[in-house]
């Protein structure tokens, strides 16, 4: 016996369901630093990645249900590789990928009973920091063109808040990583200490040839974390903490089905 449910209610229920699902997992942040774009996720697993490479200049970060965003990742890699093979490597852009993701998520959200509990970021590093692109795509297929930094995940508002206070344009890698881990550690209003083993870190390095994506782990990550802490201590002592120059948190939301 079918019951009538108002479309508004249906959408609201789906959105609540998706939000709850996403809120169960840990967050991820993506932010610019002087040499490119840094991607950091709170992830215990060494092999089930939340952060990956999509193409030469394009990285992917996701939170939520692993099988669902893994599906999206594979789709993105396939799309990018086919595009790049068909035309040229330069013809694959972050915008295209963000649009494909938005369309896919938008369709799943409106057509299927269960929405996907994922939130993803597509980041493309440009030749200069002004040409960097960071897109956030939510479970209902909305795209947000972010400036400078973005946090996705359960309590991303908390994390974004911390990021906004601390984010400095042209920060060094270690201080950007420090900002990111500091923000991630304050998820859900708690205060934790994040170690190298809890973190999945990768960069899109502007100066690198061919493929810009590189993972940072092991000793190098531990060193960077230490360096960031030391730098933080030194700079806050001299009162030059870089929260005065936020890259502007201006956002322009675009409907998921646009383009």
């Amino acid at each position: 016996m079918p019951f009538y449910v108002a479309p508004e209610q249906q959408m609201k229920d789906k959105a609540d369901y998706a939000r709850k699902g996403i809120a169960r997992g840990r967050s991820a942040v993506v932010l610019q630093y002087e040499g490119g774009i840094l991607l950091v996720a709170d992830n215990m697993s060494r092999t089930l990645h939340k952060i990956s490479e999509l193409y030469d200049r394009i990285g992917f970060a996701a939170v939520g249900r692993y099988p669902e965003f893994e599906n999206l990742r594979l789709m993105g890699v396939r799309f990018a590789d086919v595009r790049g093979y068909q035309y040229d490597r330069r013809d694959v852009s972050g915008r295209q990928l963000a649009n494909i993701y938005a369309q896919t998520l938008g369709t799943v959200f409106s057509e299927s009973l269960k929405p996907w509990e994922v939130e993803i970021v597509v980041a493309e590093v440009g030749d200069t920091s002004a040409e960097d692109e960071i897109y956030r795509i939510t479970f209902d297929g909305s795209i947000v063109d972010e400036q400078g930094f973005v946090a996705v995940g359960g309590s991303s508002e908390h994390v974004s808040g911390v990021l906004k206070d601390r984010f400095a344009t042209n920060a060094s890698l270690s201080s950007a990583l420090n900002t990111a881990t500091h923000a991630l550690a304050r998820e859900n209003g708690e205060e934790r200490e994040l170690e190298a083993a809890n973190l999945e870190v990768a960069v899109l390095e502007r100066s690198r040839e061919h493929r810009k994506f590189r993972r940072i782990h092991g000793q190098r990550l531990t060193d960077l974390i230490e360096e960031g802490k030391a730098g933080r201590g030194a700079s806050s002592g001299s009162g030059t903490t870089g929260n005065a120059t936020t890259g502007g948190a201006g956002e322009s939301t675009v409907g998921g089905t646009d383009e």
Partner: protein
Amino acid sequence: MFEGFEGGRLPAAFMSAGTSSFTEFLSSVGPEMLPGHRLPEGGGTEHLTPDATTIVALTFPGGVLIAGDRRATQGNVIANRDMEKVFRTDEFSAVAIAGSAGIGIELARLYQVELEHYEKMEGRSLSLEGKANKLAQMVRGNLGMAMQGFVVVPLLVGYDENTGRGRVFSYDAVGGRYEEHHHHSIGSGSVFARGSIKKLYRDDLDQTSAAKVALEALYDAADDDSATGGPDLHRKIFPLVDVITEDGYRRLPTEDVARLATEVVEGRAVDPDGPTAPLG
């Protein structure tokens, strides 16, 4: 069909768990994009695409080097003077082609995407053997074209991260894969290059001397094979030399190759037959 993506959704194949092979995937969503998709009818296929000529490869302690001349010929005509026939395929491998240039370049490009695609899908690279076998399959896939006269054979070199040494793999037109020890050469001038390299090769060469040996071998190939181009000092066109070591792939800068190639040419001005190997 691919143009249709822009507005609508991607075909379901993009989302399926499916394969980590790019070629396999492409054959399901866009087979017309694969090389050799439509076989030509009938004969008379000669001279449709120029021929790429001589490639040499040799190992040295801790790495491997591959070098190719720059000439493409179409019958008696030089079709291209500065063709690139050595390709970086990933951080630890490179491939060079000899034979039908048009088909070979496409094969190398597809192979490049294939390796990278696998790496991104699986989160780890193929083993060097895996890479070598994959290339064998792709060459075999070109058999139909080879029967029509478009023969292309690659030469694969790579650094084996497991054993810490450089390795060389050669292929025949039906996809037979052979591991070569120390050095190998393919293409029209390969007979002469192989003779040359055999006499100059030692197993304790450093990177620069290995490059020198390769350039001497290419010079000898160009000396006796009209389809192979020697170093062109006037036009400043020099062979391409790629080196792969523990640190990854590196193409030697043109200045370095120019310097070495000039040394070779100057050496030949004194002794046209080049360096001699000691007897006994």
